[in-house]
C-alpha cells in the first residue's frame, strides 16, 4: 500500500503567483463540485440524493448545536461520535505500540525475522473483516470487541513498515554506535528508532486511515452505540438524510484525521527534512 501513501509531488510551477493561481483553480474546482451537486440534487428531486446544504444543516443540528459547556456537541454527538472515536484511537494505539515493538525486534534480529516471516505474511493476508465474528464471539458485543477488531485489523501496516525501517537503518550509523560502545538501549533510542522513524510514520499513517474503516465494520457487526450503530438505525428506519449526514461526517473525519497525523509527523520528523539538513 506504500505506493499510494506517498506524499503529494511538489507543484512543478514555481513561484508564489503560480501557487496562488493553482490554489484558486483548486478552490474553483471544489466549489464547482459542491454547487453542481447542490443544483443537480435539487433539480433531480430524488429522495435518495440530498443537496449538500440540506446535509450540512442536518449535520449541524444533529451533532454540533449543543451547549457551549459541552464544546457545542449535542447529546447525540457525545453518545455516538465520542465512543466511536475513542474505540478507533484505542485500537490504533494498541496496534501502534505492539506493531512498532514487534517490528523493530523482527527487523533487527535476523533469526527472529526468519522465524516470524511466514506468520507475518499470513497474518497480514487474513482479511480483517473475517475476524470480526471471531472477536464478536470472544468478547460479546461491546467496546472490547471493537477495539480488538480495530487493533488486529490495523497492526499490519505498522508491523511491516517497522520491520522494513529497522532492518534498513544505515549500517554506518549502527556500526559507529557499536564502536562508541553505546549500550543496546542507547542504540535503540538514539540510532535505530530515529533511523526507522520515517518508515514507521508511514505505517502509522496507513493504519490510522484503516482504523476508521475497521471501526465502522466492527460497529456494523455488533454495537449498541457509535457512528456505525447510528448508521444501522438509519438503515432500519429508512432515514436517508441521516445516512447522508453520517457519510459526509465520516468523509470529513477521514480527512481531518489524516491532516492531523500529517501535522504531527512533520513535527516528529522535522529534524530529518532535507531542507534543514542543507541549511
Amino acid at each position, binding site marked *: 500500500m506504500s505506493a499510494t501513501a506517498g506524499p503529494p509531488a511538489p507543484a512543478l510551477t514555481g513561484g508564489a503567483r503560480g501557487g496562488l493561481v493553482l490554489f484558486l*483553480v483548486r478552490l474553483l474546482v471544489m466549489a464547482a463540485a459542491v454547487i453542481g451537486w447542490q443544483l443537480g440534487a435539487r433539480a433531480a428531486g430524488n429522495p435518495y440524493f440530498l443537496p449538500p446544504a440540506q446535509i450540512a444543516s442536518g449535520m449541524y443540528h444533529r451533532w454540533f448545536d449543543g451547549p457551549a459547556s459541552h464544546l457545542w456537541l449535542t447529546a447525540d454527538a457525545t453518545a455516538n461520535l465520542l465512543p466511536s472515536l475513542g474505540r478507533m484511537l484505542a485500537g490504533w494505539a494498541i496496534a501502534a505500540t505492539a506493531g512498532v515493538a514487534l517490528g523493530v525486534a523482527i527487523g533487527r534480529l535476523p533469526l527472529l525475522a526468519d*522465524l516470524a516471516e511466514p506468520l*507475518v505474511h499470513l497474518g497480514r493476508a487474513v482479511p480483517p473483516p473475517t475476524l470480526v465474528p471471531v472477536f464478536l464471539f*470472544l468478547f460479546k458485543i461491546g467496546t472490547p470487541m471493537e477495539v480488538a477488531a480495530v487493533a488486529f485489523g490495523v497492526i499490519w501496516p505498522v508491523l511491516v513498515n517497522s*520491520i522494513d525501517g529497522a532492518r534498513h537503518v544505515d549500517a554506518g550509523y549502527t556500526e559507529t554506535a557499536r564502536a562508541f560502545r553505546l549500550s543496546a538501549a542507547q542504540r535503540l533510542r538514539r540510532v535505530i528508532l530515529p533511523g526507522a522513524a520515517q518508515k514507521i510514520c508511514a505505517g502509522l499513517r496507513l493504519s490510522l486511515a484503516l482504523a476508521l474503516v475497521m471501526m465502522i465494520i466492527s460497529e456494523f457487526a455488533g454495537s449498541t452505540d457509535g457512528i456505525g450503530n447510528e448508521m444501522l438505525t438509519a*438503515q432500519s428506519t429508512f432515514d436517508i438524510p441521516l445516512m447522508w449526514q453520517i457519510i459526509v461526517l465520516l468523509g470529513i473525519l*477521514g480527512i481531518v484525521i489524516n491532516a492531523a497525523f500529517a501535522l504531527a509527523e512533520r513535527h516528529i520528523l522535522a529534524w530529518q527534512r532535507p531542507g534543514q539538513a542543507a541549511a
Partner: protein
Amino acid sequence: MTAGITTASRAARRGYRGAAGLLLVLGAAQLALWAAQVSPTAFPLPSAVLDSAAHLGTSGGFWASVGSTMAVWATAMAITVAIAVPAGLLLGTRPWAERALSPLIEFLRPFPAVVLIPLVLLIVQDDTKTELVIVVYAAIWPVLINTIYGVRGVSQLAKETLRSFGFGPLPVAFLVSAPSAAPFAATGVRIAASLAFVVAIAVELVGTGMNGIGAFTAAEEGGTGSTAILLAVALWSGLIGLGLNAVFAGAERLAFRWHFALAATSGELG
C-alpha cells in the same frame, strides 16, 4: 557459482526457520490452552482450527461461497481497470488537470467505502450490484494514483529523443510512455486486487442476505457458532489473499522483468 549456492542454502534455511516459527507459535498456543484448561468453546485449540480448515477444504458450500466472492471480485477488478487506467493516463499526461483535480481526489480517496453500504443497498436494491459499487469505489484509487505517478515519471529525455527523430505523438505514447508507466499501473492493480478481496468480504459480512465468504462467516456465526470454523474461514481467506497477491506479483515480475532490473524496488518484507 558459490554465490548461487549460498543464496540457495540461505533460502532453504529461511524456509526451515519459517516453518519452525509457525510450528512454535501453534504448539505454544496449543500447550498454553491445554495447560490453562480453557474450554474449547471459549477459545478453540489450534488443532481444532486446522481440523475445521481441513473440513472446509472439502466442503462444497464453502467453495461455492468462495466462488461467489471471486466472481464479484473479478468483475469489480475489470471495471476498476477499465475506469482507472484510462483516467490515470488522461490525468497523468495533463498535469494541469491533475493538479486542479487533486483536492477532489484527495477528498474522495480516503473515504471509508464500507459506510456507503446501507445507502447503496437502498438505492440499487440489488446485493451483487451494491457489492460491485462499493468494491470498485475502494479499488479504483490505488490504480488511478499509481497510473498517474507512472505517466508523470516518464522520461522527458526519452520522449524528446523520439520526437527529434521524427516520431509522432502516437508512437511516442506506445514506445515510451506506455512501457514506462505500465509497471506502476500494474503495482496499483496488485494493491487494488488485495484490497478488493477484503472489501468484498466486508460488504458480504455487513450486508444481510448476501452471498460469498463474508456471508458464509456471518451464517456460521449465527448458526454453529463455532469459533474454530470462523477462524478456519479466516485462515482460508488469508491463504486465498496470499495466492492472489502471489499471482499478481508473479505476473508483474514476468511482464516487467526489465523494469525490476532497472529499479530494485523494495518495501516488501524480506
